[in-house]
């Protein structure tokens, strides 16, 4: 694949630059049906950089599901419609789950964990030796290797092979594993760090002494030109106002908190009969509380256009997770002009909302209940809050801005080989 673009900044001339060094992106999973924030970001980055003629390869596992890590995609190389080469390697999950669970629980409890146990723990979950050996054997051929998120073996083990050309996009949360020594040293030894937001960078600075090559690049948020909110409502038979949550329905994402608050909200609203529905899409078990079965509506996995429609149709988007390093869905809701109700314990989403003014934060379940009441009682005021959300997203996370920042930093840190004008990468024999 030939990389070619005109550049006047990185090289100080208008000569055509042929990018001959391939950039590898290394997510733990990639492909249709993969749910995960970091995975989604890297998939977008792959498409975006490939469209700008940066030679891209995806190095990943054969897994689709992060609960089972079953090898669902075939191992080997394929090429996507965007021209991106995807190399898949089988996952291995044969270590003792006792190590994983016993040490994992101690980590979550904030206990001091020995280096040996930290290493046992990180090796007790999925591993992907094939990927490790591919990078060990061929890693020097890549201009840079971009890894995300920080906590997976694919990042921990593989990014340290050619650490000086590793760019880690940690997608860091303020959580006990982020304080483990194994990750601290991984961050400190990386060639460079890409952050999604300033609060994430600030957290990294508190946790370690990161490399000097670091930059807040953000992540691309695709902003549709228009939304079909009515069509969405009609397709799914939604006639009443609703709040929306999209993503993984699991404990770590605050899903149970949202359900509990929603149940309380429903109890409160039995007096006046008015209210909201809670509409959700994504993966994970929904398990609505008793009495709320009819009011909690699971749409499963939605197409991109239906998800856009849901974002626009919702009275508010709720983000109950405090552990967000970017929160793509919050920004998608903002872009759709929908107010956001978010867990104020999360620094990143709180910062988005402070800067855009496009929603409310809560501290504790009762405040979440009150936020839901506000949305139900004053939908117009809630909608008005969101007025500047779209502008905020476009000014900061419009994809071309993000891709330009990424390309500029890669060119600065890992200059691409330049071939004489008129020659392709194949002609110069690299890539």
């Amino acid at each position: 694949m030939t990389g070619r673009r005109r550049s006047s900044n990185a090289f100080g001339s208008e000569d055509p630059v042929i990018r001959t060094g391939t950039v590898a992106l290394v997510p733990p999973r990639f492909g249709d049906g993969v749910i995960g924030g970091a995975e989604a970001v890297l998939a977008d980055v792959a498409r975006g950089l490939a469209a700008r003629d940066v030679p891209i390869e995806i190095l990943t596992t054969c897994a689709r599901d992060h609960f089972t890590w079953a090898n669902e995609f075939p191992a080997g190389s394929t090429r996507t419609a965007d021209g991106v080469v995807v190399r898949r390697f089988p996952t291995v999950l044969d270590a003792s789950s006792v190590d994983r669970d016993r040490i994992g629980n101690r980590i979550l409890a904030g206990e001091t964990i020995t280096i040996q146990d930290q290493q046992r723990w990180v090796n007790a979950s999925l591993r992907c030796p094939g990927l490790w050996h591919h990078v060990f054997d061929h890693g020097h051929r890549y201009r840079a290797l971009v890894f995300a998120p920080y906590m997976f073996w694919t990042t921990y083990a593989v990014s340290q092979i050619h650490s000086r050309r590793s760019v880690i996009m940690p997608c860091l949360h303020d959580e006990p594993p982020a304080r483990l020594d194994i990750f601290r040293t991984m961050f400190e030894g990386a060639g460079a760090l890409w952050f999604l937001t300033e609060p994430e960078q600030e957290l990294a600075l508190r946790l370690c002494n990161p490399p000097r090559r670091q930059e807040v690049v953000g992540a691309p948020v695709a902003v549709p030109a228009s939304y079909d909110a009515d069509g969405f409502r009609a397709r799914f038979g939604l006639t009443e106002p609703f709040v929306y949550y999209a993503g993984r329905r699991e404990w770590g994402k605050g899903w149970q908190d949202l359900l509990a608050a929603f149940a309380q909200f429903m109890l409160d609203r039995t007096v006046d009969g008015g209210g909201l529905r809670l509409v959700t899409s994504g993966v994970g078990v929904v398990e609505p509380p008793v009495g709320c079965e009819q009011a909690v509506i699971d749409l499963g996995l939605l197409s991109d256009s239906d998800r856009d429609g849901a974002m626009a149709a919702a009275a508010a988007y709720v983000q109950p997770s405090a552990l967000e390093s970017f929160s793509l869905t919050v920004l998608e809701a903002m872009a759709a002009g929908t107010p956001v109700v978010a867990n104020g314990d999360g620094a990143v989403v709180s910062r988005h909302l402070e800067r855009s003014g496009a929603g409310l934060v809560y501290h504790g379940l009762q405040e979440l209940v009150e936020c839901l009441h506000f949305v139900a009682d004053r939908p117009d005021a809630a909608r008005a809050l969101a007025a500047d959300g779209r502008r905020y997203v476009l000014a900061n996370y419009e994809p071309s801005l993000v891709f330009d920042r990424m390309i500029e930093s890669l060119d600065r840190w890992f200059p691409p080989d330049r071939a004489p004008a008129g020659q392709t990468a194949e002609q110069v024999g690299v890539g």
Partner: protein
Amino acid sequence: MMSVLLVTPFAPYRDGIATYAAQELRCLRADSHAVDVLSPLPSAAHHHLPLGGVRGAALLVKRAIRYERVIIQFGPELLFGRCRSAADRVGVWTSLAVLARASKLDLRLHEVEYGPLAQNPAERRAARLALRWADRVTVHTEPERNRLSELLGSVTDRIEVVEHGHNFVPAVTCTGSEAKTELGLPADEFVFLSIGFLQHHKGFDRAVEAFTVAGLPRAKLHVVGSGRVDHPDIGRYVSSLERICARTPAVELHNRYVSDDQFDLWLTAADAVVLPYREIWSSGVVERARLFEKPIIASDLEQLRHQLALGGGGVWFTAADVGEIAVAMEKVWSSAGYARSPDADSGAAPPAVDRRRPMHPLWDIDDEAPDRAAIQVQIAARARAAQDNEPQTLVASPAAGAPSDGERPSAGLRALGPLVIPEPVSARPGVTPVKQTVRRLTGWQLDPMNQRLAALQQATVDAVIEMETRLERLSEALDEPAT
């Protein structure tokens, strides 16, 4: 092209032998061999088996005979780490002998425990068979071959000495000044580097001491590395190294694990490498430093001397004590064109801090029969010398009439030593394995409690001292006449 099984601790575990094995893996693959890796724990290796005891060794034999060649990166932890008895150890050696008979076996002896071999004739017999039947047995230094030969007799001709670094290739290719820039080091400062896992036998504290003695301007000593494992002894050593480095000007401790890239980046940036080991089998750092043609200052240990001589060229010094290390430091520093300013030498403008303190005598201790009273005397002398050289602390000096240090309320607390879990050893026959088993079974509960207790104790001491200081200041303020 052969099918090869490489048996070794492996990445992403922090382990020197794992790093060595990765180099060999690269070379084998460059020679077009199909290499699988087998490690004792789940890792980036293709396979893992619970090595370290008889069962693991037997499973290894079963797995390994499918390969045309088997290379074992031999270390005590890898093969004997789970052995409970002398019979277990004999069983492991016997399995290796069986494997050597069934397949082409290469044994890379990184370290052999001489003690058990010396004590148990049965183990010696089994080891002799394994070494005799192995296709190739290598060590890195002549002294190690000689010691093994003394113990095992007729296997001398089976043991080859190979250069530790014969498989090594640089992980970075930048220049020294580029590496300094990347690490944020001043370009015009001479960089001494002590790098590797931080543990007592590496002796990096001696590098600090020698650097202080040398007192070289426009030079800095960087100590780079981390504890390989969490062990109370290593923790205590790292803490003490942190204190020593913190109070010593122009010395910086970078207490963190470094990847292979980072390791070589530091070596590229270094102007000289200082390795004042107290003991070592053979040193991978020596070989990596040689890759980058760096002057090496190393302890005068027999193995190191041999290793350095085996490597041929390059600038290297061996030093018998801290004083000699300091002299060698000054030599490499001055040969790089650095010089003391004439003013400093003439005494016209002495430096603000005189770093040329008198050299401590080496510890005068008989390791076989240490004299506690003599050690106490040495400790007190060293402490006084260190105190004389220490910068002022921020703690307020006691007011007149203030209680002496021993009378302070915190004295009792401070006198409490850290809680140390007794080593699981016993002079009584058979008790040590039992104690070790109990230790292993209870470690997961006891170690965190012990660490928490130590942290609590330290926090309590700090808090009480802080309170004492505040009270003394308050008392001083109250005693002062009102203005």
